[in-house]
């Protein structure tokens, strides 16, 4: 009896943890994406069940830890030059919104609350923008802030990291969708959040995760470049020297073979 008292709560806790990680009623494949040297992006598939008749909206985001440096060009005399540097931070690197119905069916307050919009308005409330001035890095003024965030969203859209699409299919209470993730996806845990909305009312929310990590060579190269810069640089130089000499030897060898062939004819 005592054993049952201990085992049952433990099983309950384990069950709760499992459903929280995978998302109750939400299936995400693959759960782990490994980025190796031969990698050109992945297709993420997800499916699940939701209250019948509800529109499904899905948000795929990475943690808000990106820092991107931007340069503003301005006219100095006759020339267009870089006139200002800025940093946009506190935003996710990956942000995809998918839906089974037009986005305008979601009421404004829900769009704002859930971060569902075609123009990524959510990003304007989360982003931090600092500008490099003579005195150092300072928060951007309101006008500058808008310009930089807008440019950041534009660059992310171009890189396939920010996207919006109505490509979810719903069949009764089942929904499924797929999304193409670009090679530049952040190497960390990202989330997939599903919202079931009917008549402007949020009926259900599900959340699941997928992990993105580099394979051993990719992780090693990253670690060396960041934490052992001088050794990494030395290694790069030695490899370049070796390749330079090896290619020369190869060409000399080919030339002597070619020359020998000619002489023999």
């Amino acid at each position, binding site marked *: 009896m005592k054993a049952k008292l201990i085992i049952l709560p433990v099983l309950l806790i384990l069950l709760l943890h499992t459903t929280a990680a995978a998302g109750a009623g939400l299936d995400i494949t693959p759960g782990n994406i490994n980025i190796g040297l031969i990698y050109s992006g992945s297709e993420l598939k997800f499916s699940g069940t939701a209250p019948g008749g509800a529109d499904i909206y899905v948000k795929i985001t990475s943690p808000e830890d990106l820092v991107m440096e931007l340069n503003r060009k301005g006219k100095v005399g006759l020339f*267009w030059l870089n006139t200002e540097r800025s940093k946009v931070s506190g935003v996710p690197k990956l942000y995809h919104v998918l839906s089974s119905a037009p986005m305008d069916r979601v009421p404004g307050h829900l769009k704002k609350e859930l971060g569902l919009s075609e123009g990524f308005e959510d990003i304007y409330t989360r982003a931090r923008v600092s500008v490099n001035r003579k005195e150092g890095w300072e928060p951007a003024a309101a006008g500058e802030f808008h310009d930089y965030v807008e440019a950041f969203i534009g660059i992310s859209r171009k890189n396939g990291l920010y996207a919006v699409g109505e490509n979810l299919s719903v069949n009764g209470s089942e929904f499924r969708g797929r999304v193409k993730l670009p090679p530049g996806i952040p190497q960390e845990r990202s989330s997939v959040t599903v919202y079931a909305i009917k008549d402007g009312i949020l009926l259900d929310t599900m959340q699941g995760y997928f992990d993105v990590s580099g394979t051993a060579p990719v992780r090693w*190269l990253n670690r060396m*470049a960041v934490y052992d810069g001088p050794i990494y640089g030395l290694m790069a130089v030695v490899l370049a020297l070796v390749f330079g000499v090896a290619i020369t030897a190869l060409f000399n060898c080919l030339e002597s073979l070619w020359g020998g062939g000619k002489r023999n004819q």
Partner: protein
Amino acid sequence: MDIFLPIARMSVPVFTIAGLGGLVGLLSGMFGVGGGFLMTPLLMMLGIPPAVAVASDTNQIVAASVSGTLAHSKKKNVDFQMGFIIVIGGLVGGSLGTVLVKILRSLGNFDLVLKTAYVVMLFLVGSFMFMESLSALKKKGESDKGEKTAVSGLLKRLPMKKYFEVSGIEASIPALLALGLLTGVLAAVMGVGGGFIMLPVMIYLIGMPLRNSVGTSAFVVIFTAINVTIAQSAINHTVDLVLAMLLLLGSSAGAQIGARLGGRLKAAQLRIAFSIIVLLVMAKMTMDLLSPPASLIIQGGVL
């Protein structure tokens, strides 16, 4: 076939990148220049972040220059003694130039001064070489014996002279060190490898024969590129080894072909080809500076 770049965090087509390396290596072998002026914008056009493009390009220049130097040394066209003296001056100049950049930046409008100076310098070097080579081509029996200018004459009258057997010229050691220093400062201030400045300096100021200038310039560029690669890796962490390896496979092969192609051209023809490239780069830079950009805000680098 695509390959993932671990530092740039994007995929690129293998053969396009190796092909770009080959094209720039061809120039490196023919003219003894690094080719960063061409490679960096091309990589950026493929979507590679600017910081990664600049740093990885300098790494591939090491291989292309080694390959070019070895190809030229086989034909006894590399003056290693003179090259070493210029390298010493160049490395000191590079360090001084880095300090100068800091001072100029603090004075403001650095970009304007720099880019104007760059365009003017390219215009002067390119048009002077073009005109001079054109008149040399018209003269029959032109040989590659080096140019006699007022400065090259002055260098021969300075103290601590040394005869350089490979180039067949006499030059003052302090003057060579000073020229190396000047090249190093200009290279650091303008953010280029130095080959573009080095070749005209060797031909018109030192009076070296063109073929020795090309081989010796490639030799000097090896050291400049090694210096910058290690500095970029240690300070900015932006050298992408996979990208650099793809580029250098192409560029080392291109440098071998370029050195052989260059050997088939007359010295004046080679100078004309080089001056046309200099003028084209100048025209492209001027257009970039004068025409309004497609977007006023562009990506600097992902931190």
